């Protein structure tokens, strides 16, 4: 495989994404919301004493905090109510929600890269070049995977910065972000979810052959993330370092299987005939 060809394919796909507003706009809005907007709202809201008193007087909320798994409670020891709220929302519950990003970024770009070529009938000219099936596939995978991961990591850095800066007056140096439980999510589960999103989108693109169709169908993968969010909130599955590594392994294996199926599908003969 020739790196220059792979890079050219990836670069071209990203240039096209940049020109498609419905592709890049969600990739700007969602990170800003998750990494900056919502954390700032949560960090600034508890400073209102009336709001804190209201929380302290809510028996449901207090019993919810008491019922949290012991691993989570360990992080809350010695914190006042204000600090506990920041820790619960931004330290625990936001963690699985962050996984929406690698999944969303990768499926948007992959839908544009794979289904978009079909939709705009540009695939045939690409297939008549000397680029091999493998180079085309890897180039398109790289176009979706690399920016998805890079953006996720940038958002993670931004989130860390916002939490530590805006949260400093509240946390008073007791705990700094990110919590160790975030590392498996960001560096182990996120790449797996990116690959899962891309490979699923390749398979979906072969059927729908339109950018919006592929994007909407692959969007159903968000259910995986929602399941993790619900698990975390209800305390059924707390994403500790160990469980995070295990969940990541399952996603890696699933993504591996779907990638294998995508590679088998991504052959000139199939691409040409199904594009007719």
């Amino acid at each position, binding site marked *: 495989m020739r790196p220059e060809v792979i890079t050219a394919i990836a670069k071209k796909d990203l240039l096209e994404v940049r020109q498609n507003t419905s592709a890049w706009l969600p990739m700007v809005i969602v990170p800003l919301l998750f990494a900056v907007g919502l954390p700032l709202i949560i960090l600034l809201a508890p400073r209102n004493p009336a709001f804190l008193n209201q929380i302290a007087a809510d028996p449901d909320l207090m019993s919810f905090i008491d019922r949290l798994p012991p691993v989570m409670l360990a992080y809350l020891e010695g914190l006042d109510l204000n600090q506990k709220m920041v820790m619960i929302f931004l330290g625990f519950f936001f963690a699985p929600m962050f996984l929406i990003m690698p999944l969303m970024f990768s499926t948007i770009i992959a839908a544009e890269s794979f289904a978009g070529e079909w939709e705009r009938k540009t695939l045939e*000219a690409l297939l*008549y070049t000397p680029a091999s099936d493998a180079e085309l596939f890897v180039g398109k995978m790289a176009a979706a995977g690399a920016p998805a991961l890079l953006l996720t990591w940038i958002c993670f850095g931004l989130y860390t910065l916002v939490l530590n800066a805006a949260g400093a007056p509240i946390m008073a140096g007791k705990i700094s972000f990110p919590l160790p439980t975030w590392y498996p999510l960001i560096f182990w589960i996120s790449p797996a979810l990116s690959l899962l999103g891309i490979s699923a989108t390749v398979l979906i693109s072969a059927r729908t052959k339109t950018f919006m169709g592929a994007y909407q169908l692959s969007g159903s993968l968000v259910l995986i993330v929602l399941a993790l969010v619900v698990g975390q909130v209800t305390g059924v599955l707390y994403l500790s370092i160990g469980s995070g590594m295990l969940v990541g392994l399952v996603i890696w294996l699933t993504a591996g299987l779907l990638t294998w199926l995508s590679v088998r599908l991504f052959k*000139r003969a199939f691409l040409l005939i199904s594009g007719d």
Partner: protein
Amino acid sequence: MKTILSVEHLTHRYGDQPALDNLSFEMQEGEIFGLLGPNGAGKTTTVRLVNGMFPPSTGKIRVLGLNPTRQGTEIRRQTGVLTETPALYERLTARQNLEFFATLCEMPKSERPARISELLSFFGLEPRANDKVSTFSKGMKQRLALARALLHRPEILFLDEPTSALDPEASAQVRDLIASIGREDGRSVLVCTHILSEAERLCDRVAILGKGRLLALGSLEELRRRVMPGLWLEVELLSGIPASLEARLATIDGVLAVEPAGSSLRLQVSQLAVVPAVAAAVISAGGHLLRLQPQEISLEEVYFALQNESNGGSHAS
């Protein structure tokens, strides 16, 4: 001349659907070769097979001495294909499109800017080089797609329906460009078309396909002779046809048939040498000869005669 493309007993099926049936032909170096046929005749499938996009069901193909089934990548390094739709990235500029394909075709980085400028200038697109392709007219897109196919100086250029989506003016422009690529550059060009006037104007030889089968192969002259043996003359008279003229013409040696056609006569003769005898007979019969013209059968007539024959009919004369 060197054979650069040969197809022997090529058969291909898409599932149960037959696409090509025992097709054989050869293409020579420097030739403009036409594949003619209606939609579904197997023209695009032939281009795909010879470029190694997928293997044929049966049959043998050699392109520049290479086997497309095993050496598709090597073949695509030496061929350029203009697909039926321009297949350009419309959100990118003309130059970005060409730069992308130049990289994929392994053109050395140092050569790319000059080659791209040369082609943009040749196809009259230099002033719009940095505009998005989505702002181009259909004719401009087709010219850019032609430039893309020629980027890496291919040995063989395949053009799949190069003018089918264009208006007459743009068609003529693209046809002139193809002619200059073929005739002036000496490049081998295979043109797939259902536009017969295009093939007539461009091609040295044509293969006429029908339902995946080869109906005829040869130069236009060879095909004319095959469909309509002999030569047809149109004899136009100023003031009516003398009563005895038809009978007198029929007795001339070399006259094969005489048919009245309004105030004119149509004659089938074995060769051009018979024409003076025909003229003398008309005059001696008292006819006022206004015009005596050998009739050229067009490719269109050849084509329809062959398609009709393949559908179970006979040659129309």
